């Protein structure tokens, strides 16, 4: 049985090749894969289980008779063009982070830093849009406990926003690591792992945007169905 794999050390020599890290230690694991990447995929799998019930809860209450006894209907409050721009921003951030990963694997750390900061910037822009949207909804009479549309909506999008916030902080940390020389081509896997998390945040928003915003008008919405 293989002995416990050692952790990678930045800048170490060796024939490592996990996602292009030519200089890092290669872990001798039973799967042949870096356990950190496997751990991230495991975490993302668990995060799917986190968002699944939240989405299910929203879908369960959508269109339910009496779900919106007071407060505005989705069609009265959603600003689809504004949210579409937010979606484009998050999509573009996914492109940016994949560029950062590619740059790090090539060894172009200056470009990596730029792409990472760009991704974090777009993430902050998205969060700003979410904050503006939430405050607008509250001002228009839709709070967390207003009705059975509002509660699932705010919980689901709020938790997504929290994930984005963590992602932004993580990316800024990565950028700092590149800037300080702690992250190099040798340990580019760390950037790839951060990228995996960011892409997950993006795909959750893809689902939220479609389920809530584009198809979220319940059959009982008089603004849509008369």
């Amino acid at each position, binding site marked *: 049985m293989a002995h416990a794999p*050692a952790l990678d050390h930045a800048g170490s020599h*060796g*024939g*490592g090749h996990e*996602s*292009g890290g*030519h200089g890092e*230690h*290669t872990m001798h694991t039973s*799967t*042949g*894969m870096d356990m950190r*990447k*496997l751990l991230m*995929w495991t975490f993302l*799998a668990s995060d*799917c*289980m986190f*968002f*699944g*019930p939240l*989405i*299910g809860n929203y*879908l*369960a*209450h*959508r269109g*339910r*008779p*009496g779900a919106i*006894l*007071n407060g505005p209907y989705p069609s009265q409050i959603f600003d689809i063009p504004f949210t*579409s721009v937010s*979606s*484009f921003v998050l*999509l*573009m951030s*996914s*492109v940016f982070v*994949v*560029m950062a990963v*590619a740059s790090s694997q090539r060894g172009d750390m200056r470009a990596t830093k730029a792409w990472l900061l760009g991704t974090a910037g777009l993430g902050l822009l998205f969060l700003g849009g979410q904050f503006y949207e939430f405050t607008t909804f509250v001002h228009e009479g839709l709070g967390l406990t207003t009705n059975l549309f509002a509660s699932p909506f705010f919980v689901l999008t709020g938790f997504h926003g929290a994930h984005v916030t963590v992602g932004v902080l993580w990316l800024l940390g990565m950028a700092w690591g590149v800037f300080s020389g702690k992250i190099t081509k040798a340990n580019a896997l760390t950037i*790839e792992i951060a*990228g995996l998390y960011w*892409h*997950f945040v*993006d795909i959750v928003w*893809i*689902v939220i*945007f*479609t389920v809530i915003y*584009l*198809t979220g008008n319940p*059959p*009982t*919405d*008089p603004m*849509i*169905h*008369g």
Partner: protein
Amino acid sequence: MQTVAPLHDEHEGPHHPSTSFYVKVGAALFAVTAIEVALFYVHAVDLTIVLYALSAIKFAAVVAYFMHLWFDNKLFTVFFVASMILAASVITAVMALMGGFGHGSVPPPGSGGAHAPAAAPAQGAPPAPAAGGAATPAAAH
């Protein structure tokens, strides 16, 4: 410390899509999103299934190409697909348990009042006093 080559690395390291490939995928994602938003404003027919399908295409593209799942070890795919199946099952179960299916058959409130459901009494609302001899609908329970 002496490094040791991993047992299975046929998909790691050497195969990385080019930058232009990522840009093309990104452009395709943008285009699909634009189509989704455009379809949102089409009220003539119910395009929910189409919107879900487009969303699934975007989802798959990000997972396969940006998250590198298409090029990586298949164990990652197994992990992620299994979690997707589990999550979909949980969504279905939550909806079934909470009566989330079948809301589409509820008539719009315009047929019986702006916000009053046709038959189901409002939860927690006091019973309205009878007016003009009209009988108050009996509570469900």
